[in-house]
C-alpha cells in the first residue's frame, strides 16, 4: 500500500496567494495522474472549493471532528495526496495540533509523507513565522514559496536576515511562483475553473468555453513555469516515488 502524502499550504497572513498555490498543486498532481483530495479551511465558503468543487471539502482544522475527517481517512481514502489549504493565521496552530495528535510523529517514522508549503509575504513579519513553524515542523519537507503572482516585491527583505531564517529549517527549499498577467489571473477567477481547464478552453462542467487565446497562452506559459519549479524540487517523487516525473505538458 502506497504511503499517503499530506501537503499543508499555509501562510501567516492573508492575501499572499496560498489558495493560488494550492490550485497549481492540485492541477499538477492531476496532470501526473495522482489522485488528490483537498481540504479548504476557509469556512464557511472556501475559495479553493469554488475552483475544485469535486475534490474539495471545507473543514475547520481546529475542530476535532474535522481533524478526524482529514487524518483518520488518510489510509482509506482513494486519494494518494491530501492538500490542505490552511487559512491565514492558522499555520502555526495547525502545526501545533498536528503535533498533539501524533501526526508529526508518524511522519517522522515514515508512515506518512508530510510536506509544508509556506507561502511568504512581502514583509519581515512573515519571516519571523518561519522560525516558529520550523520549531514544530522538524523533518517535514519544507518549501518556502516566494509568490510573485501579484507582482509582490521582496524589496523589504534584507538578504542576510532572510538567509538566517532560511537556514533554520534543515533542508528547506525555495520555490518561486512567477508573476501572472493581471487580466489573465482575473479571467481565471471569473471563470471559476482550474487553471488547466482555462488553458484547455473548458468551462465549469467541461463544456467548450470562449476564453481569449492570448490569456490562455499567458496562463499556460505561467503554469508551465510553476510546474517547472515543482519538477525541480521533485515533488512527484516525494509523494509517489514510483511515478516518473516527466509530464510537463500543460495542455493538449
Amino acid at each position, binding site marked *: 500500500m502506497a504511503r499517503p502524502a499530506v501537503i499543508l499550504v499555509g501562510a501567516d497572513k492573508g492575501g499572499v496567494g496560498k489558495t493560488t498555490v494550492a490550485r497549481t498543486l492540485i492541477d499538477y498532481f492531476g496532470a501526473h495522474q495522482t489522485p488528490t483530495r483537498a481540504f479548504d479551511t476557509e469556512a464557511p465558503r472556501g475559495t479553493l472549493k469554488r475552483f475544485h468543487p469535486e475534490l474539495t471539502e471545507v473543514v475547520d482544522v481546529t475542530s476535532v471532528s474535522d481533524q478526524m475527517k482529514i487524518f483518520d481517512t488518510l489510509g482509506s481514502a482513494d486519494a494518494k495526496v491530501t492538500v490542505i489549504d490552511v487559512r491565514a493565521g492558522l499555520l502555526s496552530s495547525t502545526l501545533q495540533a498536528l503535533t498533539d495528535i501524533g501526526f508529526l510523529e508518524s511522519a517522522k517514522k515514515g508512515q506518512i509523507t508530510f510536506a509544508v508549503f509556506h507561502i511568504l509575504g512581502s514583509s519581515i513579519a512573515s519571516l519571523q513565522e518561519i522560525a516558529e513553524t520550523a520549531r514544530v515542523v522538524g523533518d517535514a519537507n519544507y518549501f518556502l514559496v516566494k509568490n510573485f503572482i501579484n507582482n509582490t516585491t521582496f524589496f523589504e527583505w534584507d538578504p542576510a536576515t532572510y538567509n538566517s531564517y532560511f537556514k533554520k529549517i534543515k533542508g528547506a527549499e525555495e520555490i518561486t511562483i512567477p508573476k501572472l*498577467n*493581471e*487580466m*489573465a489571473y482575473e479571467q481565471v477567477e471569473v471563470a471559476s475553473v482550474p487553471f488547466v481547464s482555462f488553458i484547455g478552453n473548458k468551462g465549469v462542467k467541461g463544456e467548450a468555453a470562449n476564453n*481569449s*487565446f*492570448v*490569456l*490562455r*497562452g*499567458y496562463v*499556460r*506559459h505561467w503554469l508551465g513555469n510553476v510546474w517547472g519549479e515543482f519538477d525541480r524540487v521533485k515533488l512527484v517523487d516525494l509523494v509517489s516515488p514510483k511515478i516518473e516525473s516527466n509530464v510537463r505538458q500543460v495542455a493538449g
Partner: protein
Amino acid sequence: MAFRSSITIVASPRPRVGKTLLARLLTDFHLSEGRLVAAFDLNAGERTLAQFLPDKTTTASIREISGQMALFDHLVAHEDLTKVIDLGHESFESFFSVAHQIDFVEEARRRSIAVAILFTITPDQTSIGAYRGLRDRFSRATLAPVHNEILGPAQHRDKYPLATGGPGVVRMPALAPGLRRYIETPPFSFADSGKVSTMPPDSQSELQRWLRRIYLEFRELDLRILLADLRHSIQFGSGT
C-alpha cells in the same frame, strides 16, 4: 496537413528598410490571387499601411494586454482570411516575445494557419542577432530573409542562415526612381487598375514588370511554406 490560410509577418528591428512597401505588395498580391485579405498595421507613429490600404488595414497596438487580445485572438480566428502584418521596428521585440509566450505559431497551426516571417536583412549586428533569435524561438514558422535591393548589394547574406528545405532569400527588386512618385501617394493599391491606368504607358509596363518579378517571388514563397510543412510531416510521420 493542408493550410487553409497564412499569416505573414513583415519584420525587422530596423526602421526604413521597406517593410511597409513589402506589406503593401503582399496584401495586393494575395488580393490578386483572389484571397480574402486582412492587413494589420503595427507601427506606432505614422500608420502608413493604413493610409495606403485603408479598406484592408486594421491598426493595432500591443502595448496593453487588451490590444494583444484584440490582435492575437483575431489572428488565430477567421481561418479563411489571409493576414499580413506590418510590424513596426519599435514593436518588434514585444510582438515576438508575446507570440513566443502564448505559443502563437503552434495555436495557428492547430487551426490550419501557416505562419511566415519575412525578415528584411541588413548588415547590422542587431538585425543578425534578431534573425537568429527568431529562428531559435519559432522553429515551426517559415522564416524567409528578404533582400530589398534598393538598400544595396547583400554581401551580408551569409550572416542569415537559411533553414534546410525552407525558402531562399526573397528578392525585392528596386523600383525605377521615376515610378516611385506614382506609388508613394496614398491611398494606393497595386491591385487597383483604375489608378494604374492613369500612368503613362511606359511607366505602366515598367510597373507591371516589377510587380511580376515580386509576385513570382511571393508565389515561390507560398510553395516553400507548403513544402516545408510537407517535409516536416514526412520527417516526423505525424501528418498533424
